[in-house]
């Protein structure tokens, strides 16, 4: 009977799986410790979430064609230096730490074994750039979303790649709707959904609806919690302002920009844009103009 070997097989897979979990465990531990402060909570907590996080990292590994630091490299470098996929949802190309990355996590070889071993694993920094290659990261995002449907970042990242690089607008919209169903209050997903309508469907009406809904959600939540993620708010306001400008509702556009100015790190630039818009709006409403300042 093959029972003993099956047992070995099982043992093997358990070990392998454990090992592959080590990495996300390390990361999520470091990550959520900051949030919850309780190690026990993390260890005992939702293992699905840990797994989901692992697959998100996997997606990032695939994006780099397997060139990725192990936990040991991270220990030597002090901290994980590569953004996980969810951090850079506005396009992988503009990593914050691009410069850091280009130098690579790999230090010069320490000994001959180290030098020799670099022939046997990806040791050069690359991204999936050939047309369509980005599809390879999708399975991991899909699985991550199945495991942890409340991580909205997963949906944003997947939608970005589906829309921008793989020409799969339907799938992007469907996936975002799925995420919206799981996270009805997520302004992040509403923002992405709005971009699908605005940029790909050419449907400003619906884009405006979801963005406005997103804005409301943001305000509701910021009223409840003290601190909020301003990034999505800025993005939504910018997009709404642009949309209204295109649609000719200049006052509305201005009002969005005014709100944007209060949260933007670059209020002066926004003010310039406001001024520009006001000038465009000036001729039809010349009477009101002088009164406004």
């Amino acid at each position, binding site marked *: *009977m*093959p029972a*003993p*070997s*099956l047992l*070995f*097989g099982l*043992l*093997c*897979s358990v*070990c*392998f799986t454990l*090992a592959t979990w080590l990495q996300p465990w390390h990361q999520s531990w470091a990550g959520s410790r900051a949030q919850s402060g309780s190690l026990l909570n993390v260890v005992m907590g939702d293992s699905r979430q840990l797994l989901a996080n692992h697959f998100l990292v996997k997606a990032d590994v*695939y994006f780099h*064609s*397997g060139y990725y630091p*192990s936990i*040991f*490299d991270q*220990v*030597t470098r002090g901290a994980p230096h590569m953004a996980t996929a969810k951090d850079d949802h506005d396009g992988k190309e503009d990593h914050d730490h691009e410069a850091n990355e280009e130098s690579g996590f790999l230090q010069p070889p*320490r*000994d001959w*074994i*180290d030098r*020799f*071993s670099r*022939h*046997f*694993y*990806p040791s050069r920094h690359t991204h999936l750039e050939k047309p*369509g290659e980005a*599809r*390879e990261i*999708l*399975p*991991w995002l*899909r699985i991550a979303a199945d495991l942890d449907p409340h991580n909205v970042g997963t949906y944003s990242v*997947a939608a970005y790649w*589906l829309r921008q690089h*793989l020409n*799969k607008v339907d*799938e992007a919209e469907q*996936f975002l709707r799925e995420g919206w169903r799981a996270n009805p209050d997520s302004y992040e997903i509403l923002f992405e959904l709005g971009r699908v309508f605005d940029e790909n469907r050419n449907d400003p009406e619906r884009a405006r609806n979801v963005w406005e809904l997103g804005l409301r959600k943001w305000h509701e939540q910021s009223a409840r919690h003290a601190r909020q993620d301003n990034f999505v708010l800025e993005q939504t306001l910018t997009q709404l302002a642009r949309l209204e400008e295109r649609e000719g509702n200049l006052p509305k556009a201005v009002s969005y920009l005014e709100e944007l100015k209060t949260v933007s790190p670059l209020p002066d630039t926004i003010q310039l844009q406001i001024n520009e818009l006001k000038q465009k709006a000036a001729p039809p409403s010349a009477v009101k103009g002088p009164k406004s300042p």
Partner: protein
Amino acid sequence: MNNALAIASVVVKELYRRKDFYVLFVLTALITLLMGSLNFFNDDKIVRYLKEICLLLIWISALTIAVGTTARQIPAERENRTIFPLLAKPISRGQLVAGKFLGCWLACGLVLIVFYLFFGVISASREHQWAAASYFQALWLHWWMLAVVVAMALLGSVVFAAPSSNATICLVVILGILLMGRHLNQVALQLAEPMNTVVYAIYFALPHLELFDVRDLVVHNWDPINWLVCGGATLYAAAYAVFFLFATWLVFRRQPLA
């Protein structure tokens, strides 16, 4: 050599008359096909996740077969007392060790060929390309890694009494090397002096089996490795396999059988 080959042929016969291999192969094939039938965003060209899963299963199966088969060889001969009529023939114990090694290793080679053919078919069906050189290198390096594994398990089987404890110890050591081997030098750097030297010594002494794991290169379609480097790795594995076999012979040579 004749005697070693005779023993090897019996080992190979045993492998294909037992069910283990078929079970593992069918399991691997089933899981791979199942994963391949999943639909991700209506994109039927996605292949790398499938390659990765298939290769992972192949590695698990091959390690299981290699360690399981080898660990049981000599203990089973002793337990079933088949070693007595065998060694009553004009055959030396060294030839017995060599034969068992060759048999297990060749059997692993056959197993790998079947597995990698399956892998090739799976990936070609999606990618419409056949990176023959890379696949061959992966198979070749994998096979040579198994030479070290088989020799190690053989040594374990004459040192430890029970085959199951030997198999467990071997698997733990091998998995430890596969997961940690590459990073031991970094670990050493973090340690204070006496341990630093110890860990560094271990780092240099142990067989770096993880070298032979080129799955990432295959999965992500990297170029084939330089053939000279491949040859170097082969020599590296051969050296360790010979070392372990020699140690096995030293232990087994004067071991009383009764």
